[in-house]
C-alpha cells in the first residue's frame, strides 16, 4: 500500500472542480484508492466517488491521507501528489 498525506490549500477545499479533478485522477488507476480527512477524523472513503469525496468535508488547510492499494499504487499516489502540488487544477494562494 502506498500512502500520501497532503495539506489542501485550495480556497474552497476539496469541493466542486478540485474534487471532480481528484476523483477523475483516482479513477484512472486500477488500484483501490481511498481518502481520509485527518483533520476531521473521517473514515476512509472511496476516492473514485465524487459523493464520497465531498462527504469528507475537506476544507482549506485540512490534512488528508490518500491511500492506494493495487498493481499501480505507486503511480496512483504519484499522480495524486502531483495533482495536490498543482492545486488540484486550481490556482491556490501563496
Amino acid at each position: 500500500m502506498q500512502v500520501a498525506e497532503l495539506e489542501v490549500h485550495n480556497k474552497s477545499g476539496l469541493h466542486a472542480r478540485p474534487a471532480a479533478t481528484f476523483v477523475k485522477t483516482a479513477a484512472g488507476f486500477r488500484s483501490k484508492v481511498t481518502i481520509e480527512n485527518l483533520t476531521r477524523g473521517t473514515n476512509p472513503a472511496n476516492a473514485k466517488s465524487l459523493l464520497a469525496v465531498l462527504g469528507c468535508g475537506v476544507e482549506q488547510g485540512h490534512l488528508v491521507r490518500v491511500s492506494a492499494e493495487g498493481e499501480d499504487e505507486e503511480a496512483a499516489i504519484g499522480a495524486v501528489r502531483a495533482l495536490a502540488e498543482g492545486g488540484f487544477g486550481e490556482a491556490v494562494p501563496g
Partner: protein
Amino acid sequence: MSDTAEPLVGIVVASHSAKIAEGVVELAGQMAGPEVRLIAAGGAIDGSLGTDAGRIAEAIGQADAGAGVVVLADLGSAVMAAKLALDMVEPQTAARTKLSGGPLVEGAVVAAVQASAGDDLATVVEAAEEAANMPKDVG
C-alpha cells in the same frame, strides 16, 4: 486519465425549461470536462416551457457513445416524455438508457463526473440517485 478510449456513459438533461437544461449541462460540463457527452433537452418544440419527447429522443441518440445514457428529468411530465422518447430511439440505445430519479442539478453533476471517470452505466445511475444526499455543509 483513462488508459483506454472506451466509450463513456452519456447524460441527457430533460427540463421543462431550455435555460435550465442548458445551465445544468454547462455546470456539469465544467465539473466533468469535455469528454462526456452531455446533452440538453429542454422546453417545448416552440421554445415555450414544456417537454418534447422527440427532442429528448434526439438528445438520447446524441448522448449515446455506446456505453449507455442516463436521463435526468426535472418534473414528472418530463419523466413521462423521456419514457415516450425511449420508444423513438434505436432499440439498442433504448436498451442501454436509464431514467434517473435523482435530483436534476446534483444528479447531473455527479453522473457527469462519474461518467468522465469511466464508470459503467449502473454505477453512474446509482451515483445520480445518491446525489439526493449530496453533502452541502449548511450547518
